[in-house]
C-alpha cells in the first residue's frame, strides 16, 4: 500500500467512506472503522492511519476505484465486472488478482492482475495461448484499429463483431484506461451498451422503426414490410445475426409488440438496432423479394438435388475452404461441383438449359 492511498483515505474520512466492505464514519470527533466484520473506534487521524494500515487491500482497493480507474460509469462497471467485484470480497479478489483473473468478451480474453500493487491488464485472442511467446506484442490501444481490420485469411472485416477476429497478437501490461480503450477499438460501443442494458437503460430500436428512419438509397427498405408479416425479418436475423455470424446478442425484434421467432444468441453484449450491414443487405433483399416466383422444370437425379442443397449449405456455413481437394464424397467439393456444371449447364450458364424468365 502506498502512502498516497492512506493520505487520501484520511483526507476523505471526514465525509464518510463505505465501499467494498470498508466503512469509515466520522464519530464524535474521531472515526469508526469497520472492515470484514471488525469494528475499531479511533480518535485521531494518526490512529485512523494506523488501523487502516492493517487492511492494505481494502485501502488500495478503495483508492483504485476512486482515483485510478476511469470514472465514466460504464467503463468503471466493466472493469469491476472483469475482476468479479460484485461477487468476491476484497481479500478474495486480491488473492485471485495475484494469480490473474480472466474474462471473455466476444473473442477477447482479458486478464486482470495486480502487479506491484497496481492493476494491469492483458488482452489476447481466446484461441491463442496467452503465454505463447510468438504472439506479436502491442501496448498502444490505437494499434487495435489496424489489427481488427482483416481476418486471419487477410479478408476485410466490415462487421467488427463478426467471429473472425485475427489471432496471433497480444496487448500486455495495459493500465485500466488503455484496457477499456483497446476493447472499444475491437468491439466499439459494446461496453456502453452492455452497461446500459445492465442498468435497464438500453435504447433498443426495433426493425420497423429502424427501417422507417432510412432515407436516400436506403429508403426503399420501408416497402419490404407489409401488413402483419414479419417472416422476412426472421430470415434476415437467421442469415446475419446468428452467433455464427455476429457475436452481439440481438435484442431488437420486429417491433415492440412482435418478437421474431429466431433466437437472439448468447453474446455477452447486446445489439440494439439493425446495423448498417443488415440495412445494406435488406436494401438488396427488398429488390430481390419484389420478384414473383415462377415455375421452372429441371431434371435432376436424386443425388444432384441433394448436391445442390449441399452446395447452398456449404456456402452459407462458410465451409467451402475446408472441403478437401479429393473429397469427392462431399457434394460441395470443387470437382463434384465442376462436374455438375459441365453436365447440367448450357453455354449461357443456364441450369439444365432452362432460361431464366424475367417476366
Amino acid at each position, binding site marked *: 500500500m502506498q502512502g498516497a492511498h492512506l493520505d487520501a483515505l484520511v483526507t476523505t474520512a471526514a465525509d464518510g467512506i463505505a465501499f467494498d466492505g470498508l466503512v469509515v464514519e466520522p464519530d464524535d470527533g474521531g472515526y469508526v472503522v469497520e472492515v470484514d466484520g471488525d469494528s475499531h473506534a479511533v480518535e485521531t487521524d494518526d490512529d485512523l492511519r494506523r488501523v487502516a494500515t492493517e487492511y492494505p487491500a481494502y485501502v488500495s482497493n478503495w483508492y483504485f476505484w476512486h482515483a485510478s480507474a*476511469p470514472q*465514466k460509469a*460504464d*467503463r468503471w462497471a466493466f472493469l469491476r465486472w472483469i475482476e468479479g467485484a460484485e461477487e468476491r470480497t476484497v481479500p478474495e479478489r486480491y488473492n485471485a488478482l495475484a494469480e490473474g483473473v480472466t474474462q471473455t468478451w466476444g473473442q477477447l480474453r482479458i486478464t486482470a492482475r495486480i502487479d506491484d500493487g497496481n492493476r494491469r491488464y492483458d488482452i489476447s485472442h481466446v484461441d491463442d495461448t496467452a503465454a505463447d511467446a510468438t504472439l506479436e506484442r502491442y501496448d498502444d490501444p*490505437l494499434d487495435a*484499429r489496424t489489427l481488427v*481490420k*482483416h481476418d486471419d485469411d487477410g479478408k*476485410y472485416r*466490415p*462487421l*467488427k*463483431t463478426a467471429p473472425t477476429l485475427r489471432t496471433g497478437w497480444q496487448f500486455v501490461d495495459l493500465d485500466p484506461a488503455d484496457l477499456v480503450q483497446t476493447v*472499444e477499438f475491437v468491439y*466499439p*460501443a459494446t*461496453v*456502453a*451498451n452492455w452497461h*446500459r442494458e445492465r442498468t435497464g437503460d438500453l*435504447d433498443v430500436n426495433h426493425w420497423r422503426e429502424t427501417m422507417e*428512419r432510412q*432515407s*436516400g438509397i436506403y429508403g426503399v427498405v420501408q416497402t419490404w414490410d407489409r401488413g402483419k408479416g414479419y417472416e422476412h425479418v426472421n430470415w434476415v436475423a437467421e442469415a446475419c445475426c446468428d452467433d455464427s455470424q455476429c457475436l452481439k446478442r440481438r435484442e431488437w425484434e420486429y417491433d415492440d409488440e412482435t418478437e421474431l421467432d429466431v433466437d437472439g444468441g448468447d453474446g455477452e453484449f447486446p445489439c*440494439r*438496432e439493425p*446495423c*448498417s*450491414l443488415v440495412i*445494406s443487405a435488406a436494401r438488396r433483399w427488398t429488390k430481390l423479394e419484389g420478384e414473383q416466383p415462377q415455375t421452372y422444370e429441371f431434371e435432376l437425379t436424386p443425388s444432384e438435388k441433394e448436391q445442390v442443397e449441399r452446395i447452398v449449405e456449404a456456402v452459407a456455413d462458410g465451409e467451402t475452404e475446408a472441403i478437401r481437394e479429393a473429397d469427392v464424397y462431399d457434394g460441395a467439393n470443387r470437382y463434384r461441383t465442376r462436374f455438375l456444371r459441365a453436365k447440367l449447364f448450357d453455354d449461357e450458364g443456364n441450369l439444365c438449359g432452362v432460361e431464366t424468365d424475367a417476366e
Partner: protein
Amino acid sequence: MQALVIAAHGSHLSAGSSTPTFDHADTIRAVSAFDEVRESFWKEEPHFREVLRTVDADEVYLVPLFISEGYFTEQVIPREFRLEEWEPELWDSDGTSADTATLTAEDTGQTIHYCGPAGTHDAMSDVIVQRAQSVTDDPDVGDGFGLAVVGHGTERNENSAKAIEYHADRIGERDRFDEVQALFMDEDPEIDDVTEYFESDDIVVVPLFVADGYHTEEDIPEDMRLTDDYRTGYDVPTTVDGHDIWYSGAVGTEPLMADVLLERAADAGADVGDAIQRVKSETGGAEASGD
C-alpha cells in the same frame, strides 16, 4: 472536458476507406488538444448512432469528414447522432459557408457543436495546394503549372460542385498557379477533356475526395487516359496530348487535412491552444498562408 468526434463515411467493402480518418485523428491526438478524439462512421463502427455514448466528455465538437454540404451533413449525420431540433437553416449556409450549430444529443444529453464539413472550410484550399506540392515534390510548385480541382458534378448534389468551384476560385485568386480550373466527373467541364482546358504543359490534378477508392483510383485515371486499365497503374507525371499530368489521388489523404478538422472545431469554440500551429508544422502546412 471536450471531445472531438470525426464523422466519416467508411466502407463495407474497402479496408482502406477509414485509414485517412484514423491518420488525421492520430495527428490530433498527438497534440492533446482534446480530452478524447474518436472516429465514427456511417458504414463502420463505431457507427454514427453509437459513438457519442462511448465518449466521456459533455462537450463534443462533431466534424464531418465530408467534402460538401448536402444529404450527409444535413440529413444523415444529424439524424443518426440524434441532434435534437436540428435544421439545416441553423447553419445559414449558401452551400459552402456552414459553420456551426450547438445542439443536444437526445440519447446522451451531451452538448454537440455540429460543425460544417471539412471540405468547405477555407483551410481546405491550403490542403489542395499542399497536395499539389506533395505530388510534384516541389514546395514552390505553381509557375508554369495548371491546377485542376476535381469532383462529382451536380448530378448527385448541387453543393458538391459548389465546393469544388469555391476552392478553385480561391486558389486562382492567389495567382500561384498559371491556371486553375474546376473539373467534374459527370458534367462539363469534364475531367475526360482535362488537356483541352489548360495551356500549361504541366497540370496537377487534385480530386476533392476524402479517401481513395473507386472514383479516385479507377474512374478518374482512366477518364484522363493516364492508363487503359487502372490495375496496371500509371506514372506521375504521365504525358497525355503533350501535357504532363501530375495526378495526386484523394486530397483527403494529405496529412495537413488534420488541420482542417481542428480548425473546424476551433471555429466552433473548442479550446485548442496552440494545436493548430503544431499540427500545421508537423504536417508540412507551416508555410501555407491563409489568404
